[in-house]
Every structure is written in C-alpha cells, then in structure tokens.
C-alpha cells in the first residue's frame, strides 16, 4: 500500500488534490482512499489530507502516519508544523517553492523536488491555487497515477475553462519536470 500525505494551507485545494489523486487511481484500476485531516478549516490555516493507493480493498481508517510521499503546498510549513513526521527514509517530498531543494535546508534522507507551483498557477489559472501543478509534478515523478486519469478527474470535477486551465497548469508541471 502506498500512502501520501498532503500538507498545505486552507484554500490551496488540499482536499481537492487528495480527492483527484484517489479518483485518478480508481480510474487506473486501483483501490484508493482519500480523506481530509478533519478540522475547522480556515483560509491560511495549516491543513492535511491523506491518500492511500493499493491493489486490494483499503480497510484501515488511521491517519497516514508513515507516508511514502509528501506533497507540501507551502514550504513555510516546514517551520511551523511537523511535516516530516513519520516519512519513510527513502521517501519523496514534492514541495511548492521557487527555491532549489538545497535552499530549503530540510534535514531528511528523503528525496526532495521543488516546483514554483503558485507562480505557475497564477500565470495559467490566474489564482494562487497550486494543487493542479503539484499533482502534475507528483504524477510525473512517481508514475503512481497516470496523467490521463488525472486529467479526466480534473475535467469531471471542474468542467469547462476552470478544468482546462488546471489541466494546462498540470501539463506545465510535467514539461518542467521533463526538462530536469
């Protein structure tokens, strides 16, 4: 079973990102579970969402405590919440940042990849919601969920221009990652 924890702030589309990943995994023929870390969500407050992907039915209801992957939608969170808690030593962290991994000074044995997701989202979508970019980078790096399935999931949730812009933002993330 693969476990993913998404850290972000209220308003960054954390729960939507978890939902979209789970729907895409389902479309790929896998079993998936997505749920938010429940709280009284407010814009800007640190929030979490969880995704599990497996080849068989997922029964556990625990929060994700030992993730294989972290998606961090705001790198400032490293300084305020225990983002790295329980991350597997050989895990992967995808961070929304305009800096290189080294410039973030994160103490971990896990691999870190950064992408300026807010910047890209502002350019393409016109709003600072980085989730589509982050999902694009995550899917490219892990190959865990197919990009086609994510695209379908985005278009089903946000039909029309909003969906198209989000798909474009996701594709930009893939292009950037391909060039590295």
């Amino acid at each position, binding site marked *: 079973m693969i476990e993913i924890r998404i850290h972000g702030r209220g308003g960054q589309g954390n729960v939507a990102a978890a939902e979209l990943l*789970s729907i895409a995994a389902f479309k790929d023929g896998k079993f998936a579970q997505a*749920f938010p870390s429940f709280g009284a969500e407010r814009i800007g407050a640190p929030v979490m969402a969880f995704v599990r992907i497996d080849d068989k039915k*997922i*029964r*556990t*209801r625990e929060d994700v*405590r030992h993730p294989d992957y972290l998606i961090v939608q705001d790198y400032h969170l490293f300084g305020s919440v225990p983002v790295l808690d329980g991350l597997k030593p050989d895990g992967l962290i995808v961070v929304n940042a305009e800096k290189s991994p080294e410039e973030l000074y994160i103490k971990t044995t896990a691999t870190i990849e950064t992408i300026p997701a807010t910047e890209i989202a502002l350019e393409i979508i016109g709003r600072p919601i980085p989730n589509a970019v982050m999902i694009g980078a995550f899917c490219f790096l892990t190959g865990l969920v197919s990009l086609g399935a994510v695209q379908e999931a985005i278009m089903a949730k946000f039909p029309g221009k909003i969906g198209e812009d989000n798909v474009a933002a996701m594709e930009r993330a893939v292009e950037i990652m391909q060039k590295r």
Partner: protein
Amino acid sequence: MLKQIEGSFAVAEMVAMCRPNVISAYPITPQTHIVEELSVIVGKGQLDAEFVNVESEFSAASVVLGASAAGARAYTATSSQGLLLMSEVVYCIAGMRLPIVMTCANRAISAPLSIWNDQQDSMALRDAGWIQLHAEDNQEASDLHVQAFKIAEKTSLPVMVCMDGFILTHAFEPVDLPEPKEVDAFLPPFKPTNIVDPRWPRGIGLFADPRFYHETRYILHRAMEKSGKTIKAVSAEFAKSFGRESGGFIKTYNLKDADLVIISMGSVVGTIKDLIDEFAEEGKKVGLLQICSYRPFPRKEIYDALKGKMNIVVLEKSISLGRGGILASDVRWSFPRADKKDRNISSFIAGLGGRNITKDDLRYMVEKVKKEPVELEFLGLNKDLIAKKDL
C-alpha cells in the same frame, strides 16, 4: 456502478433512489454533504420530493414526523448537537410507530465543543425505540439506507443509520451504487397503514393515561425485539438482490480459532481487520465480532457466536459517564450469570472527539488484555494533560 465517491454523496444518491416523498433538514453544522446533495438532486428535478429547509433540527424532526404521519416516505439526517436537539421528537416518532429513516453522521457531543467523530450522539438516543444500524464503510453505509426504508416500513419502527462522521462521511472510496430500477425492485412504494387523514379524522400519539401508557412501552419493546427477524431477512434479501453482504445483526472475522475476540462497531473495524491479519502472520489468533445492529441488540447472536471464547475486549467510541463502556455493559449482559464466571470481558474507550485510533493503540490493547482483563481503560490517554488530582 462502481464509483470513487465521497461517503456523503454515496448516501445521498442511494437515499434519492429510495424515493422519499419528504426530506427535511437543518442545513448548517453539524450537517453533512448528504442533505446538501439531496437538495441539489431535488432542485434539479431528478427526485420528486418536497425538500423542507428548516431553522433547527427540532423542526426537521417535526417535519418528517408530520410527513410520515400523513403517509409520506420521509428522511432526515443530522448528528451531534443536532440529534440531541431532535431528541424529544425522536422519542415521539418511535412512540407513534412512524417508519422514518435518519442518517446519524456520528459525532461527539459538547462541551467542550468538538465537531469530530465519536458515537456518543446516537448512543444518547439508544433507548428511544429506534433501530440503530452501524456501517463499517461507505459501501455498507449506502447499502444500509435502502435496507433501512424496507425494515422501517415492514416493522413500523424508525431506523437510524449510523456512519462515522468525517471518517466515513468525508472519505472518498469506491462505492458500488445500484441502478434506480434495481432499488425500485427491492423497495416498492410505501403503503402506509396508520396515517392521519382529514377525510377520516383521528389522532396518533395522543394521550395515554396510566391505564394504557405502560402497555404501549411493552408493545414497543416487543416490536424492537421482534424487528431483529426483519433486519436479518432484509439483509439476506439484499445479498440476493445485489450480490453483496451488508447489514444484518453481527458479522465476524477470523473468529473460529481466535483465543481473543475484539467486539466493536462502525468504521474502526476496518483498522481492526488489518491488525488481525498482522497478528495472524505472527501466529496470534485474534478475531473480531462486529455489531451492525446495535438496537435491537444482538444478545443471542453474540452469545452463540462466542461459545467457548473466554477472552473478549470491547472497544467503543462512547461512554456512560459514571458507569463506563456502554457497549461493554451490553456485551457483559449477553452472557447468562452462570456462563459469565470464567469469561474475561475487558472494556476500552477510544477515539472520543475524533482522536485517531491507530493500529499501534489497538495492538497495545490486545497485548494488555492478553496479560490480564481490563475493567475500563481510555485508550491512548495523554496523562500529561491531566492534573494529578484528576487522575
């Protein structure tokens, strides 16, 4: 069709397929997406129903009471403080034998204020004369609703479908939703038998002086006891019609050879099953007895299923303050006195107000009760938060 869907939406789609005539709900916290989605379905004209938005849960319960008394198939949903605010009407609905279905998205009770999951809310109304069915996952939560309407209408008893708030209501997972025509075949239109009608003026639930009231409670109690047969029959019929097991009285997992049995209900049984598999790999025989029907309580089924099982631990998300585990009390009462002597029945309270129940917590619980029985323990209690004098 199998869909990756949020629990609340799965339930809303299933309830819509049950074709209620009247839905009434208070739309704000502690509400879920269930009624929000139902209002969309009704608004789009996909369900021919009256959706009555009200200013409080007391009114929501009163509206479905009136609608049901007039012969409508009626539905509402709530949780937590909302359910408590309904409580007066909840008793009336049962006393009037109205086959209303309600979803309780189980959540904690104030104070202190908590919007998170536990099962104290439905527990607070366990004695009201409602059938209470507990869902393990969103598939079962959705399936139980179509069963609930059928059970309610066959028994003239209201049914509360309990599903863990947030943990199930807000989780995306695969749910197989039937086609409307399959639901129609399983659940025919409601044919009310005991209604108020201006063409034939009469009242129900009116005045019972001491010559009568006592008997009405006896009759209601007997009806609750007898409803077990219907619950089992409807679950069996559901399995036949839809090709999967959902609901019923109890379910078991790895019980046969188990030398320790965990009893619980609701979504935590999923985590317990994973742990049981881990134990099995380690050569430890732990089993599960899962309660689906909490009211009526499956006393005989528990007794029969646990013949020869001497080590039992009850894990629950509610407490009778000043007494202890509520489910544990029910389980202890399931064994006749002579049979109780050698049985070790431990009681653990867990996950109150949304505290995460981890596999590590459950492993600790199992290891501990294997050494000695535990009268009562709060699992995962952080003693640093408690003043010495309060410990």
